[in-house]
């Protein structure tokens, strides 16, 4: 096992019910070679190359084929993967990674520092807007020797170490991409990585089969012979496949929240919601500040008071997910527990609306406003209906509009909405995943930017300070201050820290061992 002791303990502490190789050994369960893992991928990914497509299905399957330099515990501490150790210079400008030995790509060629430099400086710089935003800060990336890579930043950037997960910057073979159009290269359709499983077969609309890679760099691993991802588009059929044992692992959106309680009741199945800490998805009601009266902070506070977030987490999502407390999810770094958004309090909401001069008319309606439901399936439709009834209690008439996914994305990006639902990944650090929704420099007609149009110079200043500070303590101070301002200003009504259920047969071990959960390489997963 190439886990650092510290990372291992941190991960174990965060997910106490998990069985780890060490725990298994203590209980007399030896990791065993052999067996095929039957599972599900939904929806079917367009390609399997994690650099070319970074939607969840691609990342989950591709995470077995590719690896990053690092992986992360549930507390987001970096742990070794393709890098066995690393050093950061005291000024926070130089990052040196020492690579594992004997790492080979699936085509037999050795992985060297050259491949790492190519992956970071060229491949992901060109293909991934998110990676580009951070890697553009690298002044120089060099292969010191075949086992050592050094990146020199132009200015300190404390969250830099969070950028090396397989889902962000997988290491790709330079010899299969250099000099070609990265998107069109043959290695996109036949992905070649360093992961414990290699791509074997893909029958479109049916299944994807990955096979054990015998040349994997960890001796005697992986334990599984193969992983088969079945494509099952209907949610009830997926549930049935899990119940009958045709598949022994489901993840992400495979099982609908309302089916989860029954799965929990099955003695042979284990349901976990850990393993999304690295992504930290936070869901909120997006408010368009250009629409009156949403520009009034008293109205926004009233809306936040009017929604019972416990009901959403418990009744709509059946306990998968936690009520939000503010703009930074509690699993994300620099979460400030002292910053609390307005609590559920119908009377306080009515009082604030009265103060804002919005009196109820004969039908008890103070004002009407539109709500574009998020077209991501039934549970989101129920959420919109729940919000409408919640706001009706305080005299706000929420009129629902149903749209398709394309229309939703286009209208949200073009500020053509009053209110809607959105959820964004926080990627472990507020600079990487929170800042974009609140700073005025990011008010753009682009999806997942600051589409609400919230602008507060103090907030801009604090986010900039936190981004540029090299010292985590200094960053914490800025982030705490900005969270306290945001929960007062309520630019958006935060609803829930989302999680997704991972359900597996109890004979499958080590499914979730990191903050990226089922996106991990599965080199230590075994059947016993």
């Amino acid at each position, binding site marked *: 096992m190439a886990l650092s002791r510290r990372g291992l303990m941190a991960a174990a502490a965060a997910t106490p019910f998990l069985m780890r190789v060490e725990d298994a050994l203590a209980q007399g369960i030896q990791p065993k070679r052999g067996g095929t893992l039957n599972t599900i991928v939904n929806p079917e990914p367009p390609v399997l190359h994690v650099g070319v497509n970074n939607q969840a299905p691609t990342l989950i399957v591709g995470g077995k084929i590719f690896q990053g330099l690092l992986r992360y515990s549930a507390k987001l501490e970096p742990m070794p993967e393709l890098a066995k150790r690393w050093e950061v210079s005291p000024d926070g400008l130089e990052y040196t990674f020492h690579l594992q030995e004997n790492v080979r790509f699936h085509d037999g060629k050795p992985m060297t520092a050259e491949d790492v430099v190519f992956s970071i400086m060229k491949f992901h710089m060109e293909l991934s807007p998110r990676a580009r935003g951070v890697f553009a800060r690298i002044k120089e990336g060099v292969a010191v020797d075949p086992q050592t890579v050094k990146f020199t930043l132009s200015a300190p950037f404390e969250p830099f170490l969070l950028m090396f997960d397989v889902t962000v910057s997988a290491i790709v073979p330079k010899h299969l991409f250099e000099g070609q159009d990265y998107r069109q290269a043959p290695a996109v359709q036949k992905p070649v990585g360093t992961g414990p499983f290699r791509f074997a077969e893909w029958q479109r609309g049916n299944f994807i089969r990955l096979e054990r890679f015998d040349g994997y760099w960890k001796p005697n691993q992986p334990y599984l012979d193969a992983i088969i991802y079945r494509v099952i588009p209907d*949610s*009830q059929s997926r549930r049935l496949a899990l119940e009958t044992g045709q598949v022994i692992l489901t993840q992400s959106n495979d099982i*609908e929240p*309302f089916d989860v309680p*029954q799965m929990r009741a099955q003695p042979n199945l284990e349901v976990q919601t850990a393993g999304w800490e690295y992504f930290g998805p936070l869901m909120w009601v997006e408010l368009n500040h250009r629409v009156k009266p949403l520009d009034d902070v008293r109205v926004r506070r009233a809306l936040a008071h009017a929604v019972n977030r416990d009901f959403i987490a418990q*009744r*709509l999502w059946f306990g998968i997910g936690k009520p939000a407390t503010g703009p930074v999810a509690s699993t994300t770094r620099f979460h400030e527990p002292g910053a609390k958004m307005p609590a559920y309090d119908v009377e306080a909401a009515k009082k604030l609306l009265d103060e804002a001069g919005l009196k109820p008319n004969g039908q008890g309606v103070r004002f009407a406003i539109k709500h574009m*439901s998020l077209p991501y399936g*039934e549970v989101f*439709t*129920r959420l*919109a*209906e*729940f919000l*409408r*009834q919640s706001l*009706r209690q305080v005299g706000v008439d929420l*009129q*629902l*509009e*149903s*749209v*398709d996914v394309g229309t939703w994305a286009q209208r949200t990006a073009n500020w053509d909405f009053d209110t809607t639902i959105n959820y964004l990944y926080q990627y472990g650090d507020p600079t990487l995943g929170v800042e974009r929704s609140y700073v005025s420099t990011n008010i753009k007609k682009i999806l997942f930017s600051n589409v609400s149009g919230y602008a507060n110079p103090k907030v801009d200043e604090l986010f900039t300070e936190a981004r540029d500070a090299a010292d985590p303590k200094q960053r914490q101070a800025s982030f705490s201050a900005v969270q306290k301002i945001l929960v007062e200003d309520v630019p958006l009504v935060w609803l829930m820290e989302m999680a997704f259920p991972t359900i597996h047969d109890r004979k499958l071990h080590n499914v979730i061992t990191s903050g990226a959960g089922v996106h991990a390489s599965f080199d230590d997963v075994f059947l016993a």
Partner: protein
Amino acid sequence: MNSFWRNFARNRGAVVGLVILLLVIALAVLAPVLFPGSPWDMVAAPFAPPGEMGMLLGSDSLGRDVAAGIAHGARVSLLVGAVSTVAALAIGVTLGAVAGYLGGLADEVVMRFTEFFQTIPSFVLAILLVAIFTPTIQSIVFAIAVVSWPPVTRVVRAEFLSLRSREFVQASEVLGKSRLSIVMGDILPNALSPIVVLSSLMVATAILLESALSFLGLGDPNMMSWGFLIGSGRSVIRIAWWMSVFPGIAIFLTVLSLNLVGEGLSDALNPRLARNRGGAA
């Protein structure tokens, strides 16, 4: 009028249908009295089975009363059925009358236009229209009307073709009555019986269409309808069968009653035909 009722009552099924239909209409009218407040209100714990927590027919995934949903949904379903049928009749009767009475080029043009609509699968066209105009109660009524008028046009045209050469029509023409008053005063009243029968069936079809659209999530998100109830219950049918079964029964009974009434009307309006079939069905 008496003979009309006698002929109608001779068809027992039609009487049963009429009773059910009247009950459904009464339910729709009395919904605000029977179930005050909004059917969207969350009044109980989610997934309460029928009979528990004061929920006669159980509660849904948000704790909304299924019985209240069915009562208020009856208003929407019947309203959509009635309004869209009236709209479809307006289009269908006008075009059918023009084609059948004028004949010639007008007939050709109208019938080709009608055939154009008949070749498109009606449900697919309805989905398309609702999706384009975003799902609201108006767009749903519009879509159902647009897909259901062609049969009316054909029936009306056929009636007009046979009636316009009758002596009483020729007499009116000789008297110098205007074309409009001949169509409205002489021909249309005599062509009414197949239209009445057809329209009762069209209401039933419209209710089914609206339910099917809502089931697919293309209903008006602000209106509680039966299709919506079934659609929202479909995925949780293994947890809460009552969420889809009771609205399903409501749709079944209403559509059945409309069909029975339609048959009764047909018998009452064409007594000779009914007697040839062996009298009381």
